């Protein structure tokens, strides 16, 4: 089989090069734009499949490019990267279909899809970054590419939200720059190495190392919506549905969580971090975020805001799993990276369909929508049940591993936390399902005539992802399932 | 007391006076003149530096430099004055 050392670069380029082409296309050539979008997305999925095959066979991909003396731009494709890229590639393909349908007659489509591509390129870059410096480059690119998407509507509300989003994320980026510089000055390298690069520094100047940890986690915590840096996420809900779907399920928050993973595992090294005594506070912070996000979600009437607070809560599962410093918890965290992505994107796309098809934007308007849009609501319900952790859905698998990991790490409170969180999830999701399926629509909508018209491009994506949620949970032990792949990664990170 | 000492201090004084004028003068024309004073002060310094106790002849290089400086300064002055003239014309048109 042909060997392509530049494969990671090709994967990056499928979306990076698509962006300028999409920008340059005139607004009206919609078909061509859709064609480019879909073929690039499909190409990326194929390339990622090939790459993961090669990596599972032991292939090593490592591209370097000197930016400053000693400081390299470095792309690598390790299993952890593959996990994230695969998620992005698949969901990009699905979301692209959804966006094409969603924006069929909207304005500024050239701009939208250009930045959309850039955004995915940044996510892929973040995944494949071989050092913190490269990570920083893509992290900032992600901020810049998502800003125009967040304010896509161009009205006062979205601009206000955009400003808040920009302030949070750029400030976070600046702090990350500070942390990267600190790492570079302290350790003389910013490379991601399993086991970490800071063992010597921790031994010599633990205070500086602790400070560095706080700075880095603080910076990444902004994007990961870690309490107390989460406020931007619900506000950014003004963005169009596909943007919310992709950003919250994949790009932005996951980039933050992924970064925390890289920092704990490959900058500090899990043992060094444990020795430094920073993992438990991080786990506690994650725990607080989980509960806090769920509590806030209960009180939200706006569907997208409720989902957003749910994201705040759910993403911290990943942080929690990382911080517990147990291989089993880590497996759960990594699996949750995928599972939460699948579930959350389903729910956002479904919410978008409700708004598009029925004009339903609030929980209180959801009465009877199940009958009006059964496919969409079925998908939504599956994802919601998964979130709550109902076996055998995907969410159950990750929660199960997290709980076991908590036991293994001797942090018994995690069990209570997970149970409490599941309970809260049920409290804010089940009423939605109840309204959708068991309440009468007529009470609210004055005899909405017939079925709402949404095209297949809107209807199919959430159903597809919902099926994936089922599959990921049900066939968790199959080869190439997310769970199997995460075991492969954990073996590397824990250097077993 | 030799001429170089006397005129050196003179040159620095003239430079200083020009500096005050350049910073404080109100009228546009006077500011140009103040700058010209500064340039004369700088010229003094170079000419003084070139001076040698007679019968030695002075160093010709600074003389050349000062001549260059004088020509440069008249060019700059001409441009500044042209600006002033045009501005005044425009402002007078506005008043009218």
């Amino acid at each position: 089989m042909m060997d392509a050392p530049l494969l990671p670069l090709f994967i990056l380029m499928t979306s990076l090069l698509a962006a300028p082409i999409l920008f340059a296309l005139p607004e009206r050539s919609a078909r061509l734009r859709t064609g480019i979008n879909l073929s690039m997305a499909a190409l990326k999925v194929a390339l990622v499949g090939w790459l993961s095959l090669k990596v599972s066979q032991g292939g090593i991909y490592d591209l370097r490019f000197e930016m400053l003396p000693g400081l390299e731009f470095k792309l690598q494709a390790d299993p952890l990267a593959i996990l994230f890229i695969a998620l992005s590639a698949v969901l990009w393909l699905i979301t692209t279909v959804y966006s094409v349908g969603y924006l069929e007659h909207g304005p500024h489509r050239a701009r939208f899809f250009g930045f959309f591509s850039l955004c995915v390129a940044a996510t892929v870059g973040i995944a494949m970054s071989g050092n913190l410096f490269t990570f920083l480059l893509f992290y900032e690119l992600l901020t810049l590419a998502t800003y125009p998407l967040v304010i896509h509507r161009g009205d006062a509300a979205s601009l206000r939200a955009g400003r808040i989003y920009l302030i949070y994320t750029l400030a976070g980026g600046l702090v990350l720059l500070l942390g990267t510089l600190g790492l570079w000055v302290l350790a003389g390298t910013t490379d991601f190495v399993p086991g970490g690069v800071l063992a010597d520094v921790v031994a010599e100047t633990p205070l500086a190392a602790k400070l560095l940890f706080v700075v880095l986690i603080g910076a990444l915590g902004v994007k990961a919506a870690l309490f107390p840096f989460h406020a931007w996420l619900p506000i950014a809900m003004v963005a169009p549905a596909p943007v919310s779907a992709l950003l919250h399920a994949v790009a932005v928050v996951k980039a933050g969580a992924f970064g925390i993973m890289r920092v704990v595992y490959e900058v500090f090294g899990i043992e060094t971090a444990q020795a430094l005594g920073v993992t438990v506070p991080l786990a506690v912070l994650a725990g607080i975020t989980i509960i806090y996000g769920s509590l806030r979600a209960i009180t939200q009437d706006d569907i997208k805001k409720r989902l957003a607070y749910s994201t705040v809560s759910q993403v911290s599962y990943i942080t929690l799993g990382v911080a517990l410093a147990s291989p089993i918890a880590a497996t759960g965290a990594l699996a949750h990276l995928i599972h939460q992505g699948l579930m959350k994107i389903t729910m956002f796309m479904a919410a978008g369909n409700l708004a598009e098809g029925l004009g339903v934007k609030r929980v209180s308007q959801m009465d009877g929508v199940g009958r009006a849009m059964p496919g969409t609501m079925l998908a939504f319900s599956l994802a919601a049940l998964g979130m709550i952790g109902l076996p055998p859905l995907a969410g159950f698998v990750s929660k199960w591993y997290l709980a076991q990991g908590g036991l293994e790490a001797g942090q018994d409170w995690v069990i209570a936390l997970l149970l409490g969180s599941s309970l809260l999830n049920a409290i804010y999701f089940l009423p939605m399902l109840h309204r959708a399926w068991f309440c009468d629509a007529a009470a609210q909508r004055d005899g909405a005539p017939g079925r709402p018209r949404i095209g297949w491009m809107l209807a199919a994506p959430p159903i597809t992802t919902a099926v994936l949620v089922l599959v990921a949970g049900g066939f968790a032990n199959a080869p190439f399932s997310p769970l199997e792949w995460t075991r492969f990664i954990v073996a590397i990170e824990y250097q077993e | 007391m030799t001429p170089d000492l006397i005129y050196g201090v003179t040159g620095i004084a003239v430079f200083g006076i020009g500096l005050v004028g350049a910073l404080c003068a109100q009228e546009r024309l006077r500011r140009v003149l103040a700058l010209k004073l500064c340039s004369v002060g700088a010229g003094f310094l170079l000419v003084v530096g070139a001076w040698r106790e007679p019968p030695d002849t002075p160093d010709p290089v600074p003389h050349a430099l000062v001549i260059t400086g004088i020509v440069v300064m008249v060019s700059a002055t001409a441009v500044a004055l042209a600006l002033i003239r045009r501005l005044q014309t425009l402002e007078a048109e506005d008043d009218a």
Partner: protein
Amino acid sequence: MTDPLVIFDLLLALAIVALAVAALSVRDLYAMIVVFVIFGLLSALAWVRLSAPDVALAEAAIGTGVTGALLLKTLHHLRFASGQRSVSMTPTIPVPTGVMLANAAFCGLITLGLAVAFLGAPSAGPGFDTLVAESMPASGVDHPVTGVLLNFRAYDTLMEVVVLLAAVVAVWQIERGLSDAPAPEMGEVWQGFARLALPAIVVVGTYLLWVGAEAPGGAFQGGAVLAAVGLLLLLTRAYVPQPHHRGIARGAFVLGTGVFALVALLVAGGGRVAFEYPLDHAKTLILLIEGMVTISIAVTLAALFHGREPVALRMEDRHDT
């Protein structure tokens, strides 16, 4: 027994400083210019005392003469433009006295510091004396200042001519052919004087240029004196610049720069670098350059005095942006 000349030096120095102060403090702008002209002439005298006749000539002709004429012309224009009103008005908000005093004190401190530095510097310190003396035979001229200007540091001099060119381009650009203040009516005596003076000035200017090779004088001084011809012609309205003269004027402006730069470039080759005149032709080349530069300087200075580009006056030009 002090040298009586020291007393003269001291008095002259005092007068120079006093005139400088007077130029900045006298209220009337016309008086200011007159005081400045006297100041310039006395400075030139001081430079003669410092054995710098070339510089004195240049300062008297260009630094004082041409500058004074430019200032007077501008003042005349300002008074005309503002309709005989006092020109001392400024569009800026008056600076508070406190700020002025602070500025003055600040400048005074700087001046004191400079004076201390000056007194600490070596008197008649190291210089180029020996180097110039050694290199003069290879320079092609006999007068050291000319040697420095046209040979050792010819590049500086070329750029100085470029500055003049830039100035005249900028001035033509700035003054958009707007109507000028009318020339003052001078009378017949003046006309007669001009007729008498013009040829004499031409002779003097050419003489200064020619003599520059071995004695004080040279292109700049000669050019300035010749520029006086232009000033006289313009003032007497014996010559009124016409739009169709612009081509010739442009040619005259760039003549010095162009020839200078061309010569500098063309002598390079065969192991020589730019500006390295072959020794046999050095004198000729320098004279050629000086001649062309003199013409340019004379015409340029006169054009700077005249100010605006001679374009056909149309109403729409007045608001040309």
